[in-house]
């Protein structure tokens, strides 16, 4: 996936401009930025769900999972996941076991807690046989155990199924630990590099304007 000089507007305001980069295949890329930097906007553009000025080359097999998701009717977790499942049964088992979904499968999605719902949505995304998966703040509502389980699962899927992931995330430590490539998004544009280059203590303080 390649993009050049992307510009996004929200009403009259320019959210970002001159954003250029490339999503490395079979890697986990971590996208960091302050609130309002345009992380979600960039991801929806890359998922071809929002139009923007600039050039974009995007594979057909791309999925975007927003930060907030909801269901509009009662649906069993099992039925919801079946709507999406296109991967092999081995991958289904791995995803369901890692995210501990067995107890949730017969339950109504609307009766689950926020954290349980988030686990289901993440499974919903991963169960689709897509080459590129864009996850917008996937760690929202997850406790530390499931944060770690999810990130390890993504590493496995990357290595064994050659999938490509882009995650927007707020924790530089997790980004450094699990990310292969780092994207920093701010008004100046997109800065890309290796975790050890971009996520040093000093650079994190500067980027997030910490005291």
């Amino acid at each position: 996936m390649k993009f050049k000089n992307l510009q996004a507007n929200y009403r009259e305001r320019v959210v970002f401009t001159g954003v250029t980069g490339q999503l490395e295949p079979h890697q986990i890329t971590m996208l960091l930025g302050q609130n309002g930097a345009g992380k979600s906007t960039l991801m929806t553009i890359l998922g071809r769900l929002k139009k923007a000025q600039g050039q974009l080359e995007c594979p057909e097999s791309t999925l975007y999972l927003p930060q907030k998701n909801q269901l509009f009717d009662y649906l069993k977790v099992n039925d919801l996941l079946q709507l999406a499942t296109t991967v092999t049964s081995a991958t289904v088992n791995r995803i369901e076991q890692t995210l501990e979904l067995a107890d949730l499968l017969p339950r109504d999605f609307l009766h689950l807690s926020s954290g349980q719902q988030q686990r289901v949505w993440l499974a919903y995304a991963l169960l689709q046989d897509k080459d590129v998966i864009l996850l917008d703040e996937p760690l929202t509502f997850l406790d530390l155990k499931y944060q770690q389980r999810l990130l390890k699962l993504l590493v496995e899927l990357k290595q064994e199924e050659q999938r490509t992931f882009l995650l927007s995330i707020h924790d530089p430590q997790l980004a450094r630990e699990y990310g292969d490539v780092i994207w920093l998004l701010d008004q100046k544009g997109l800065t890309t590099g290796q975790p050890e280059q971009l996520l040093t203590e000093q650079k994190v303080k500067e980027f997030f304007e910490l005291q």
Partner: protein
Amino acid sequence: MTAKKIKHLKIMLGGLLVMLVLAGVLLRGQDASVQVIIQLRVPRVLFALGGGVVLVVSALLLQTTLRSDYLDGSMLGLANGAELALALVNVLFARALPYRVLVGALAGGILVVCLRVTLFKVKHSSFFLILGGLALAMFFAAATQLLTTGGGFQGKSLANTTWIDVWLLAIVIVIGLILLLSQWTKLDIFALPSLQARQLGLNEQSSSLTLQLVAGLWLGAVSAVLGTVFFVGLVLVQLVKLVTQVVARKRMGLTAMVGGVVLLGADDLAHYLLPARELPTNAVLLLLTAPLILVLLKRWLHEV
């Protein structure tokens, strides 16, 4: 829906049609009291049953495709629109009035198409959708009132239901069922956000157009005889949802039955409550069901 179920449905519908034809043949030429039952009571009962079914199922389809629990076709102006179309036909081409069910169905279908390019553009906001829909309904109601003042226009009660109404409703129901079955397997996907439905490859525009057309045809057809009844579809669909807590496709059968029984019950009350007077069916139906919205409001407030 499996091929087996579709086959069963076809057999049931065929059987119903044969029974109706046989009943018509056998009871022909009987004495006056039998004729009263055949010509007045039977079509009224059949229309109430069928009309109740399509009244609520149309609401279920609109709620599902617009992803909002808080509306039905009457609140979007579809029922009043059908009534206005009927009033226009009454003024311009009164000879077509016996075919009022067809007029209503066509008006409902056309209105759905018009709404899709206007009001449904704000479907992401239930509040604006309902506000716009109610304004449209009031506009149509006012126009109908102006057209029919002093004209002796009637059509708010099932008391004047004819066999032509019943047959035309049956035809509209069958057309709607065929369209509905063509989208049957896609209904569950409307439980997902629009974005996810799109990413699963659902052509939402095409599916929602088909299902909303069914809703428009059905609601227009029944409203041509029954008149407009606000909130009934909304209330009954949501009560069944509250009790069953299953996805729209799985509760459609029960919802349909409840609709048929409730409209039939309301019509019986309208007929028998005051022996010397025929009460308007739509008013009785509204009186019976509208207060139940308080139950739903309590539930919705709890969820918020």
